[in-house]
C-alpha cells in the first residue's frame, strides 16, 4: 500500500523568505502523480502544484516549485518570496495512475510572519 509522510507538523517563515516543505512517499508503482494542496482556514482545498512521475523536470508554478527525486521517493515543495496569504495547511498527496484515489500525508502547518 502507498503511504505519504510529511515529517514537519509545523513550519514558520518570515515574509519574503523561502521555505521548503518535505514529503516522502512509499510505492512500488512506476506511474503516478504527486500533488501539493493548500488548505487555508476557509477549509477550501486548493491545488498548488502537480508532478507526473514520468516527467524528470521539476514542476513550477510561479513562486511554487518542487524538488522531485523519484529514486529517493521525495517530493518537497519550495515556496519563494513567501506571502502572508501562504499561511495554511499544506498536504502532500499521491495518486496511482488510473485509480483516481488520492492518498494524503498528515499535513504541514505553515505560518508566514510579517
Amino acid at each position: 500500500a502507498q503511504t505519504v509522510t510529511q515529517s514537519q507538523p509545523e513550519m514558520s517563515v518570515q515574509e519574503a523568505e523561502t521555505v521548503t516543505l518535505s514529503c516522502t512517499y512509499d510505492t512500488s508503482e512506476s506511474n503516478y502523480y504527486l500533488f501539493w494542496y493548500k488548505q487555508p482556514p476557509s477549509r477550501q482545498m486548493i491545488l498548488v502544484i502537480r508532478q507526473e512521475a514520468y516527467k524528470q523536470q521539476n514542476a513550477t508554478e510561479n513562486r511554487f516549485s518542487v524538488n522531485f527525486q523519484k529514486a529517493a521517493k521525495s517530493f518537497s515543495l519550495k515556496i519563494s518570496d513567501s506571502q502572508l496569504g501562504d499561511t495554511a495547511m499544506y498536504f502532500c498527496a499521491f495518486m496511482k495512475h488510473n485509480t483516481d484515489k488520492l492518498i494524503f500525508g498528515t499535513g504541514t502547518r505553515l505560518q508566514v510572519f510579517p
Partner: protein
Amino acid sequence: SAVISQKPSRDICQRGTSLTIQCQVDSQVTMMFWYRQQPGQSLTLIATANQGSEATYESGFVIDKFPISRPNLTFSTLTVSNMSPEDSSIYLCSVVITGSGSYGYTFGSGTRLTVV
C-alpha cells in the same frame, strides 16, 4: 476547472440523527469522491460515487453509515447516519478534472459537522 457547490457549509447535530450533505458540480463528471477530515487530521477517502451504480467504499467505511446517492453526472449526496460525536469532522466532495494536459482534483468547500 470545475466549480463545486457543497452544502451545508456547517451544521451542529444531535447524536442519533442523520445529516445529508449535497454536492453540485457545474459540469458533468464520471466520478465523484467523498473525503472525511477529522479534527487536526488529514483527508481520508470515504467512497467513490459513480453515476448509475452503487458507491465503492474504502476500508473502514460502510454503506449503512454513509449512504451515498449519485442520481446524475453533476450531483451527489452523502448522508452521515446515526451520528455520534466521533463523526464530528469536515466532509469534502471532490471531482477529477482532466484536459489540456492537466490532471487533478477539485474540492468543494467542505461541510463542518459537529455532533453534540
